[in-house]
Structure formats: structure tokens, C-alpha cells
């Protein structure tokens, strides 16, 4: 991606930092989210807070923004101690926050959404002010549009403009690029540099090392709630940052060359009209996944991935049988259970509530997808066989849990994901579909899961991975396609694609997508 040094004047540390945190500590049941964290941000500085998932970054931002009260520690704003009791108080101080999971109201217009975040006194002449701000920072917006008609990238602009209208002196951006195409990322960086140049401080939360090195002046590294390093990321390498972030080198899965066999999953002219007013229609999607290869589908969320996954897994049945073929059998009209019997396994994006029932035990959750087989006899459940199956999965994948009777919701994200992955692989599928397999999972578990997928491929299974993390796809896939506005690009071997080409494909060509400014 962009590896130019940030433009703008060199940042000299002002004598009084705009924001100074000392000893911030926050405890949740079972986990110390922030452990005596110190942080300094100067005016005009773009400061990265770097750490892997679960390191405590989001909690720290919530403390600064007043959503959460720390158990201990002080906050100084422009030299004076303050207590940030609520987001409204934070806004009055001059702190704005763009959330990772947007806090927007879909059925309302852009104008109403922004109005809700402003104090009553400053709400006059809003539509014009929105247009002015969005033009000034290159974030095109139409105040009268309803948010549910907008793409994810456009929604982020609403979030940002909402903050900017309050003239923030500190802007917190929480993982902003996970929903953007590579080109949109560059435009965002320009906006942020403009803001920093005007004296606004920016706290940039991310785990993406290349971006931080390209954009930020300083970085604070968090690991397990503690500060493990501070540096100037422009002077570091990705490897050195990774070492600070995870205490070791960034692991890479072991690849053997792929030997692809016959197509195990064939999708042919898949058309799905969505009845969800907030959904995406799929148009003529065709691709195939051969045994012994990993095919990836990249794309910004909201471009049809949900609908495609539902059509492939069988959670949504289709009109035409031949739209989806599994190991030679047309299954378009068959439901999820039937497809599983034919050798399909599926790891959904949401662990709790979709891939597993939170209140049920791991043993019961094993039964969830392994119902047709040795675990059920004459309709009655064989409880000991079920528990044995769960135990095997727990051991084989190193899941940290008290046993097969532990409730699914008591596991950490990474451990539950390992269990689900293990459960699906344990059914010896011929085709495995994985959606966002390492989302919200710590680095150790991520690597384990990616390695498991590669091992599966080497055993001759056809694997399809749908993900928003381009890095992950590039790391494990043999071929890559891009989904945008419900259409799929042809899948090309990884070696023959480039980040720029993929970025262009992700942006799509339809008017509602991000326009590409060449």
C-alpha cells in the first residue's frame, strides 16, 4: 500500500500535551482490559494505538470518550485534570470519536443522524454546514439521504463529518480502514493529514502495521492491557512493530504447493433477489472451487457476502437446483442439513448466535452440526458419544475451556472460534466455507486457524474463504476473486493480481459505490 512518508510539517512535541493519560486501569470480570496505561498526544499529532485483538485498545478509547469509567488513573486535557463522565462531556471538551461499529441510525437521514449528535444550540442551518464540511475535507455527502441506502464507506463519512461539525481538538478513529477499499484508505489518510495540519490531534487505533507506518507520527503499543512500547513508526519496520505488539515475530503459516483436483463446488449463474430492504441482490455469480485449493473472495462488507454465504450454506434455498453443485450433485433447492450430509461444512462469521448457541454447552454445540450420524440413534441422542466428540475437538485444537460442559459463551473469542473450526473440520467435509475465519481472534489462534485451513487444503478439501481482511486472503489463498455490489469478478491466481487491481474491483463501478479518483 502507500509507503510515502506523511506530509505536513514535522511535529514537535508541545510542552503541554493535548491529552495525557496516567495509570489508566479498567477491569472486567475475568480480564484486566487496561493495566496502568500511560499515553501522551500532542496537538497536530497522529498517534497510533497499536495492538492485536483483545489488547485493550477499544476499552482505552471508551475511557477517553467517557463511555466507560476507569477503575483508576487520571486524564489531563490540555494540562488540566478532567473527569470524562459521559460522551457529551467528552464532546464538550473537544473530543470526537468515529466508532469501529458505527453508531448510526439506519432509517433516519444523514441530517437527522448528525443532528442527534449535536447540542441543540448548534443545530441551525445544518444541511448547508454538512455540505460545507464534507466539501472541505473531501468527504462527499448528501444530507437528505437515508443511511440505509448508503455503502459502508459512505456511512463512515457520516460518522466523520458528524465529529468534524463539532470542531474537535482530538479525533479518535477506531479501526477505520477495515471497511474501506485500498483507494479509499488513501483518501482517508489525506483527510486525516489535513486535519492534523490544522492542529487537530488524532488517535488512530489499528492493528495494521503498514498503515500505521505510512500515516502516524508516534505509536503506543498495547499488549494484554499494558503498554509494551512507544516509538516513531516511520522509523520502524513491520517486523519490529510486530515484535512489540505480540512479543515475538509475526508467524506465517507453512505453505506447500497446491495440487488442485476436480471442482468440488460449482456455482453457476447464481441470482438471488433479496427481500431485505437493507440487503444486496446477487447477480449472475459464477465460480468454482476445486478439491485441494483455497479460493478467496475479497470485498468490503455489505456487497453481497451475507447473501452469497446464505445461498451457499443452504440457509437460503434457491429456485434452481443447478445454481449450486456440490461434488457433482446439484443442491440449489436443498437446505443446510441436506448439504451437510453431502459433505459441506461452514464456519459463519458470527460465533455467538450463529455458529454456536451461547447458552448451550460445547457438547450440545457439537451436536448442532453433527446431528446426522453416530451421535443420534433412532432419533435419540447418545449423550456420551456427543461429549466424547466435543472432548476430541477440544484436545485436537487446543481449545482453552473447562470441558465439554462449558457454556459456549464462557469461552474467549479465539477459543470459541477454534472450537467451531475444529468441529467443522472434524466432520471430514469435502467442501469447507469459512467467513471471516479470524475476525476478532488473537494472533496465536489466528495462525492456528489459518494453518488448519491450509492443512485441510493439502488433504484435498476444497476451501472457500470469504473475508474483508485482504492480508489474510493474500496469505492463504491460491486464487482470489472480488465481490462488489452483488457481482463477482473472475478468480485469478494470487500471483497474477495486485493490491491496486483488487482495490479497484472492490470499489466497483456502480454510482452508489466509492468513486475512484484516478
Amino acid at each position, binding site marked *: 500500500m502507500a509507503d510515502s512518508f506523511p506530509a505536513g510539517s514535522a511535529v514537535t512535541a508541545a510542552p503541554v500535551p493535548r491529552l495525557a493519560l496516567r495509570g489508566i486501569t479498567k477491569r472486567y470480570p475475568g480480564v484486566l482490559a487496561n493495566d496502568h496505561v500511560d499515553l501522551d498526544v500532542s496537538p497536530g499529532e497522529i498517534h497510533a494505538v497499536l495492538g492485536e485483538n483483545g489488547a485493550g485498545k477499544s476499552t482505552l478509547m471508551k475511557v477517553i470518550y467517557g463511555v466507560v469509567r*476507569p477503575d483508576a488513573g487520571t486524564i489531563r486535557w490540555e494540562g488540566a485534570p478532567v473527569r470524562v463522565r459521559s460522551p457529551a462531556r467528552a464532546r464538550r471538551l473537544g473530543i470526537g470519536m468515529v466508532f469501529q461499529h458505527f453508531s448510526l441510525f439506519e432509517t433516519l437521514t444523514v441530517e437527522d443522524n448528525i443532528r442527534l449528535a449535536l447540542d441543540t444550540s448548534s443545530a441551525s442551518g445544518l444541511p448547508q454546514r454538512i455540505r460545507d464540511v464534507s466539501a472541505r475535507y473531501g468527504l462527499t455527502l448528501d444530507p437528505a439521504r437515508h443511511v440505509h441506502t448508503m455503502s459502508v464507506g459512505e456511512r463512515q463519512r457520516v460518522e466523520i463529518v458528524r465529529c468534524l461539525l463539532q470542531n474537535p481538538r482530538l479525533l479518535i478513529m477506531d479501526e477505520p480502514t477495515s471497511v474501506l477499499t485500498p483507494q479509499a484508505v488513501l483518501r482517508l489518510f489525506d483527510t486525516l493529514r489535513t486535519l492534523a495540519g490544522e492542529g487537530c490531534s488524532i488517535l488512530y487505533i489499528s492493528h495494521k502495521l503498514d498503515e500505521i507506518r505510512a500515516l502516524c507520527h508516534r505509536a503506543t503499543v498495547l499488549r494484554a492491557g499494558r503498554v509494551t512500547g512507544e516509538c516513531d513508526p516511520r522509523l520502524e519496520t513491520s517486523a519490529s512493530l510486530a515484535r512489540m505488539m505480540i512479543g515475538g515475530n509475526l508467524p506465517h503459516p507453512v505453505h506447500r504447493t497446491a495440487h488442485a483436483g476436480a471442482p468440488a463446488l460449482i456455482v453457476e449463474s447464481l441470482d438471488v433477489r433479496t427481500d431485505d430492504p437493507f440487503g444486496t441482490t446477487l447477480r449472475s455469480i459464477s465460480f468454482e472451487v476445486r478439491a485441494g485449493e483455497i479460493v478467496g473472495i475479497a470485498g468490503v462488507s455489505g456487497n453481497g457476502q451475507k447473501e452469497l454465504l446464505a445461498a451457499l*450454506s443452504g*440457509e437460503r434455498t434457491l429456485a434452481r437446483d443447478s445454481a449450486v453443485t456440490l461434488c457433482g450433485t446439484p443442491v440449489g433447492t436443498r437446505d443446510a*442439513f441436506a448439504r451437510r450430509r453431502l459433505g459441506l461444512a461452514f464456519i459463519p462469521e458470527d460465533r455467538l448466535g*450463529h*455458529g454456536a448457541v451461547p447458552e448451550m454447552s460445547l457438547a450440545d454445540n457439537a451436536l448442532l452440526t453433527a446431528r446426522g450420524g453416530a451421535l443420534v440413534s433412532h432419533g435419540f441422542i447418545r449423550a456420551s458419544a456427543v461429549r466424547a466428540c466435543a472432548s476430541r475437538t477440544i484436545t485436537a485444537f487446543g481449545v482453552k475451556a473447562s470441558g465439554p460442559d462449558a457454556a459456549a459463551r464462557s469461552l474467549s473469542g479465539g477459543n470459541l472460534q477454534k472450537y467451531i473450526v475444529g468441529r467443522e473440520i472434524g466432520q471430514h467435509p469435502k467442501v469447507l466455507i469459512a467467513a471471516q475465519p479470524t475476525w476478532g481472534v488473537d494472533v496465536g489462534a489466528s495462525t492456528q486457524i489459518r494453518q488448519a485451513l491450509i492443512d485441510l487444503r493439502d488433504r484435498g478439501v476444497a476451501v472457500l474463504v470469504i473475508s474483508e481482511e485482504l492480508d489474510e486472503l493474500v496469505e492463504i489463498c491460491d486464487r482470489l476473486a472480488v465481490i462488489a455490489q452483488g457481482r463477482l469478478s473472475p478468480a485469478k491466481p494470487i500471483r497474477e493480481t495486485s493490491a491496486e487491481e483488487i482495490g479497484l474491483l472492490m470499489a466497483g463501478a456502480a454510482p452508489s459505490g466509492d468513486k475512484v479518483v484516478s
Partner: protein
Amino acid sequence: MNARLELRAQPSRVAMWAAPVLAALATLLVGFIVFEAFGLDPVAAFTAFFIEPVATRYGIAELLLKASPLMLIATGLAIGYRANVWNIGAEGQLTLGALAGGAVALALGDAGWPAALLLPAMFVAGALGGMLWAAIPAFLRTRFHANEILTSLMLVYVATLLLSWLVHGPWRDPEGYNFPQSKLFTANALLPSLIPDTRLNVGFLVALAVVALAWLFVNRHIVGFEMRVSGLAPAAARYAGISARRSIWLGMLAGGACAGLAGVGEAAGPIGQLVPSMSPGYGFAAIIVAFVGRLHPAGIALASLLMSLLYLGGESAQMHLALPSAVTGLFQGTLLFFLLAADVLVNFRPRIARAARAQ
């Protein structure tokens, strides 16, 4: 001082069984207060309400007699509630069951059928009648996404009016002095007694059998498992290939069948004919029994005994304490409120945060 609720990692089993006990105790406390407010000596009132009704052999038989329909209906409802199918119309399904079973009794009672044939036929008819009435909300939900709470409830009013019309009109006993009631059932259409000199009948055994079968189904059978998943996580159910429609149909029909059986139990048991009011609200009380019993057969059995006691107490209070019999409904509602309140402890732990802040 800041009181907060913290999600527990694992639902607390202790709290799951303690909550109904806590709720029962709290309700008794409220009872004390109500008695006081009415100027009654609380201890005497308490005894009259809760102890006297079951102090005799007859009293215990009455306790079990009233517990039978409650247990039966609650079991059927619980199967549905576990699948997030909210059948609130059990009272109407009971009525339809009574009508169907009663129709068989009235039509075939004089035809010389032995009780061993007639009674099962009535039960089957009753179950079918209840299922038919429950099938309407099930159909409306699967086909039109109509909320089954409202549709099943509306049908309660319709069922009551239907019964009223029938016993005032076409099915009225011509020798009944113009009272709105059907002919009395013939002896072969009445449930045999279990304990002599009491009203406890074979229906009690039917209820127990159904409870046992339901337990087997919900906890040991794969379809029972599937329905539980449907209720806990609908997206996971779809993911696993569990048919939501089947869960809805089974959930509603289970409740309807059980309510229908209970209706026959009332018609062929203590009432012995069809009258405008076939139940003192068993269909609604059973909802409370299902909740207080944690949707679990053992819990439901115990809760139905408690609820039955509340009914008997209400009747006793009316006779001996001059309290309106509606006091039963009051206690029932209170019990459910306290249970829902106590339930928070199952999934949450109360935390009192220290006031001191380190700033």
C-alpha cells in the same frame, strides 16, 4: 454507590432453582400484607388459605385434581416456549378440546359404547380439537408471519363465544330448565375415580404420563434438541438446517393437544357436561406454571401443585374469609412477577461498585 448487573460467564444453576423458591416466598409475604390490609389476622388467614385446603384426604385429592390440567397444559406449552413459540391461547384450546370430546360423548354416550372405548375416543377427539385451534395461529405465523401471541389470544375469546352459543342454543339440554348447559354425560363417558370418595380421577395418570413423555422428548430426542436450539438462537438453528416452520408447528400443536386433553379431563371429570365456563382460567395459569417450573417437567409438576394450592386457597378464602375469589388471580400474577424479577440472578451478578474514584 453504583449498583450494576454483570453478565455471568455461565448461567447459574443454583439461581435457576432458587429463583422459583424465592418467588414463592415473596408471594407468600405479599399474601401476608394483603391479609393485613383487609383487617384479617395474617396467621389465621394464612392457615385458612394455604393449610386448611389440604389438611384432609379429600383436600389432597382436590389438590391433585386441580394440578392435573395445570401440569398437562404447562408441559405442552413449555415445549413451545423452549422453541420461542408463544402459545397464549391454551384457554381457548382447552375449550375446543372440551367441545370436541364433549361432542363425542354426547353423540356416542347413548350408543352403548363401553367406557374403555369411549373415553380414549373422547381424549383423541379432544386432543385433535385443541390441535385444530392451535393450528390456526401456527398457520398464520408460518405463512403470514403473524404474531402468535395475539392470534392465539384472540381465538380464546372466539372459543368462549362459540361454547356459549352452543350451550345456549343447539346443544342445550332440553330437560335442563333452560339453563345454558348440555346434557349430562352418560356414565360411560365419565372418567373413573382414582381414590374413592374423592373427585380425583384417571385424568391425573394421563397428565403424569404426558409429563414423562414430554421430558423424554425434550431432553433425549433430537427433535426436542432442535426445538431448543430454535428458541435459543434462531440463526444457529437455520445454520444447522433446523426447520423453523417445523418448530413452530410442533410447538403450537404440542400446546394445543395438551390443552385439548385437559379440556376433556374437565368435561369428563369434575364437570360432567358442557357449561359456558369449562375452566377457571387453567389455560392462563398454566403459562405461569410453565415459567415458574422453569419449563422443566419436575419444576412444572411442583409448580402446578403450588398453583393448585392457590386455587383451593382462593375458594377457601371466599368461603371462610369473605375475600373475593379473584384473590387467586392476584396471587398468580404476583408469583410470576417475582419469578421474572428473581430470574435476573440466573444470568447476571449484581455488583456494587465502590464510590471512590482515583481521580
